[in-house]
C-alpha cells in the first residue's frame, strides 16, 4: 500500500499507524468474540503481569485504562465522564476511572470498542496507584466479581529482595486463583514464550523511541503515546514484536530519507505526565508550527525499564518468569519516588539532548503530579534546563485550557532562546 503523506506537521499518518489500528481493532473484536464464547475474562490494571495469562489455554484480558485512553483520544472521554458523574462519582476522581465507569454503567454505549466484555476476575495493583484498587472495587461490588489485589510496595530506592519475594508469592497465588476459578491448568513454558515476546517488543519499541535522539527527532512523543497501546493490551504476542520491529525500521528509514515530523526543529522538549489524549494531533501540530517538538515523555520512555531508569533493562533470558516479572513491576514512573525520578529524567535530558521540560500537572493523577513541583525545581537547578508547568488532565478535556497552556509553552521557548543567547 502506498504511503500517504499528511501535509500536517507533527503527528504523521503512517503505514505503522494503519497497522496499529488493525492490531487494536482485531484485538478488541477478538476479546468480545472470545468472551461471548465463554473464555475466562480478566480485567487488569496496566502493569499487572499479563504474561501470566498466556500460561492458560483460554484466558483473555482487558485493560480498562487503555480503553479509557482510547476513548479520550477518540473524543468520547468527556461524555463518558459525565455519565459517571451522573452516577454520583466526583469530578475530582481520575478521568480514566470516570470514563471507564461511565462506559461500564452504560453498557459500552458510545465506546469506540463497544466497551469491554464483563470480567470473571478483576486484578488490580496498587503501585501505580491505589485508586485503581478502589476503581475496580466499583465493579467488584456492582457485578459481584472477585477482585484480586496485587500489593506492590512503593520504591523510594531500588526494589528490595524481600519485596520481590513478596510480589512473587502473590503472582503464584494469582495463578492458583485463576486455575481454581477457570478450571484450567497453568503452563509455565507458555509464559516464558510470552515474556520473550514482551521483552522483544519492548526492545523494538525502545528502538523506535530512540529515533528521537536524531536531530531533528524522527518522532514526536505523541507518536510514542499512540503506538504504546499494544504494549498494554496485547503484549506477549509475536504480532506485537513484529509490529514494533516494522515501526522502528520504518522510522529509521524515514530519518535516512530526511522525513521528520518537525523538519525545522529548534526546541526539543520532554513531557512529564500521562499523554494528553484529547490533544494529540492538536498539540503536536501547534507545537510543530512553533518549530517545537515534544520528542520524549517519561510516560513512554519508562517502557522496557525498571524503577529509576529509562534504559532498556527488561531483557528476558529465560530466568524464572515469576521473579523476572516481579523485578520489573515498578517501571512505570508512578511506583517510584522523587530521587529515582530525578535519576531517570537526568539521564533522559542527556540522552535526548533536551532543551526544555514540560511538567503537565494533572489533577486526575496525583501520583504523577504531586511531586512535580520539587522535581521541576531540582531538574531545573541541577541541569540548568528551562522548564514550565502547565495544567492538563490526561483524559477530561474540560480540565484543559489550550491558550493558557500555550502561553506558558511559548514562554518556555523564549527562555530556551534566552539561554542560548547567553551561552
Amino acid at each position, binding site marked *: 500500500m502506498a504511503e500517504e503523506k499528511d501535509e500536517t506537521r507533527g503527528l504523521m499518518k503512517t503505514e505503522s499507524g494503519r497497522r496499529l489500528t488493525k492490531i487494536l481493532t482485531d484485538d478488541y473484536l477478538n476479546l468480545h468474540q472470545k468472551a461471548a464464547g465463554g473464555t475466562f475474562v480478566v480485567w487488569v490494571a496496566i502493569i499487572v503481569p499479563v504474561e501470566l495469562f498466556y500460561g492458560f489455554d483460554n484466558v483473555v484480558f482487558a485493560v480498562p485504562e487503555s480503553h479509557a485512553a482510547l476513548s479520550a483520544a477518540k473524543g468520547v472521554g468527556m461524555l463518558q465522564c459525565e455519565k459517571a458523574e451522573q452516577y*454520583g462519582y466526583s469530578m475530582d476522581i481520575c478521568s480514566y476511572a470516570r470514563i471507564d465507569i461511565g462506559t461500564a454503567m452504560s453498557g459500552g454505549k458510545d465506546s469506540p470498542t463497544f466497551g469491554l466484555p464483563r470480567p470473571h476476575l478483576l486484578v488490580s495493583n496498587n503501585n501505580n496507584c491505589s485508586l485503581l484498587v*478502589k476503581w475496580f472495587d466499583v465493579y467488584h461490588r456492582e457485578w459481584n466479581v472477585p477482585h*484480586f489485589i496485587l*500489593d506492590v510496595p*512503593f520504591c523510594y530506592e531500588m526494589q528490595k529482595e*524481600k519485596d520481590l519475594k513478596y510480589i512473587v508469592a*502473590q503472582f503464584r497465588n494469582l495463578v492458583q486463583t485463576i486455575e481454581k476459578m477457570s478450571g484450567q491448568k497453568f503452563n509455565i513454558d507458555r509464559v516464558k514464550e510470552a515474556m520473550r515476546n514482551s521483552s522483544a517488543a519492548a526492545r523494538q519499541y525502545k528502538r523506535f523511541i530512540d529515533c528521537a535522539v536524531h536531530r531533528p527527532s524522527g518522532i514526536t512523543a505523541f507518536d510514542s503515546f499512540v503506538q504504546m497501546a499494544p504494549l498494554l493490551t496485547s503484549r506477549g504476542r509475536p504480532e506485537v514484536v513484529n509490529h514494533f520491529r516494522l515501526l522502528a525500521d520504518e522510522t529509521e528509514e524515514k530519518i535516512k530519507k530526511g522525513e521528520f515530523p518537525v523538519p525545522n526543529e529548534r526546541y526539543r522538549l520532554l513531557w512529564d505526565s500521562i499523554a494528553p489524549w484529547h490533544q494529540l494531533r492538536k498539540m503536536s501540530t501547534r507545537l510543530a508550527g512553533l518549530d517545537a517538538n515534544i520528542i520524549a515523555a517519561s510516560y513512554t520512555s519508562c517502557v522496557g525499564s525498571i524503577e529509576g531508569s529509562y534504559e532498556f533493562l527488561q531483557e528476558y533470558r529465560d530466568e524464572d518468569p515469576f521473579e523476572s516479572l516481579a523485578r520489573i513491576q515498578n517501571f512505570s514512573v508512578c511506583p517510584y519516588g522523587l530521587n529515582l525520578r530525578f535519576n531517570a529524567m537526568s539521564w533522559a535530558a542527556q540522552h535526548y539532548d533536551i532543551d526544555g521540560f514540560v511538567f503537565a500537572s494533572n*489533577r486526575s493523577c*496525583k501520583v504523577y503530579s504531586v511531586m512535580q*513541583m520539587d522535581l521541576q525545581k531540582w531538574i531545573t537547578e541541577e541541569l540548568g534546563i528551562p522548564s514550565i508547568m502547565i495544567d492538563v488532565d490526561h483524559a477530561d478535556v474540560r480540565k484543559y485550557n489550550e491558550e493558557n497552556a500555550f502561553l506558558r509553552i511559548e514562554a518556555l521557548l523564549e527562555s530556551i532562546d534566552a539561554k542560548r543567547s547567553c551561552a
Partner: protein
Amino acid sequence: MVENIRQAKANGAKVVGCFPLYPPLELLHSLGLIPFVLWDIKEHARILKESDRHIQSFTCSVVRRLIEFVLSEEGKLLDGLLMYNACDTLRNMPEIIECGLEERGETLPLFKFHVPMTSPTQIDSTGYLADRIRELVIEIESAFGVKFSSERFLASVKLYNMIRKLSLELENLVAEGRMSYADFSRLIKNGYLMSPEDYLSALKDAIRQAGSSQLKNIADGRRIIVSGILPPPDALCSIIEQAGMRVVGNDVSSQARSYSHIPQEMSDPAGYYADFYRKHYPCTTLLYLSDERLKALNELMEKRNARGLIFIGEKFCEYEYLEIPFLSKMLEQKKIATLQLEIATDDEDNVEAFRTRIEAFSELIRSS
C-alpha cells in the same frame, strides 16, 4: 496543643510526628517516644505558605496541612516522622519533606514501613508485616538509642486500648445526648497532640462530666451518623445541631474508625500489628477491608437507631469518593437518607452555604 509538644520536649521527651491514618502508636510509646498524629491540625497550619511551595492545591487538606506543619517553625519541635502506605498522596510525601527541610539545611529521621494491602482471600501476608515491624523496631532503636522491651510494649498496648475503650464510652454518652458531638470532636482532635497519659486523663474527665450532665432529648428522633476522613468542622457541627439533629455515632477515620477495634493485647509487636491492621475497623484506605464497609455502616446505623447519614467528603480523597456512591445507594435502598457535603481546605470557615441543605435534610429525616 502545640504547647503539649513543647512541654514534652522540655521534659526531655523525644517526639515523633506520625502521618495519619493508623500509625503504630503503641510501638513508639513503648520505645520511650511520644507519638503525635498530624491530622485535624487546621489551627496549627492555617496558612499554607510552605505547603503550596511543594504540592499542588488539588491535594487534600490533611496532606497540605501536614506538610505545612512539618515545614513550619512548629515542625522543628519534631525529632522524627513515621509513616506507612496509608494513601497514594501520603506515600509521596517523604521526599517532598526532605526537599523542604534540605532548603533549611535540616534533616529529620523519617521511618517508613509497608502495611500489606492484600485481600483476606489471598496469601497470608502476616509474615511480611511481621518482618517490616521488626525492621522498624531496629531502625527506631538505632536512631534514638533506645531498646525495645516486650513488657513496655504490652503496657503501651494496654494504655492505648484503654484510650480506645474510653473513646467508645464517650461516643455512647454523645449518642445519649449528654455531650455535644462538637465537644466530643474537639477532645478527640486534641488527643492526637497530647501524650497518651494526658489524653487518658482528659477522656476520664470528659466521661465524668458528661455522665453527670443532663440528658438532652431531641424532638422527632433526628438521629444521624457522620462519615468521612475528618469530622465536620465546628461550625458545621453547630449547624447540624441547630437544624435539630444529633450526631449519635460516627464513621470518621480520626474518630470511630481509629478506636472501634480493640486489638488483642500481646507483648509481641509483630502479632499485635497483624491483629491491629487485619482486623481494623473498616476504612476506605485499608484496601483489603472494602467488603466490610457496608456491613460496618449498617451495624452502626442499627446500633445507634440512626435515620440518616451525612458524608463529610474530604475534597480530593478518591478513596472516599469512589465508595460514597455505592454506600449511598445501599443505604437509600434501606430507606436511610444520606447527604453528601464536600469540605475543601478553605471551606471550613465557609460552611454557611451548607445550612439550607442541612436543614432540608433534617426535615427529610424528620418526616421519614
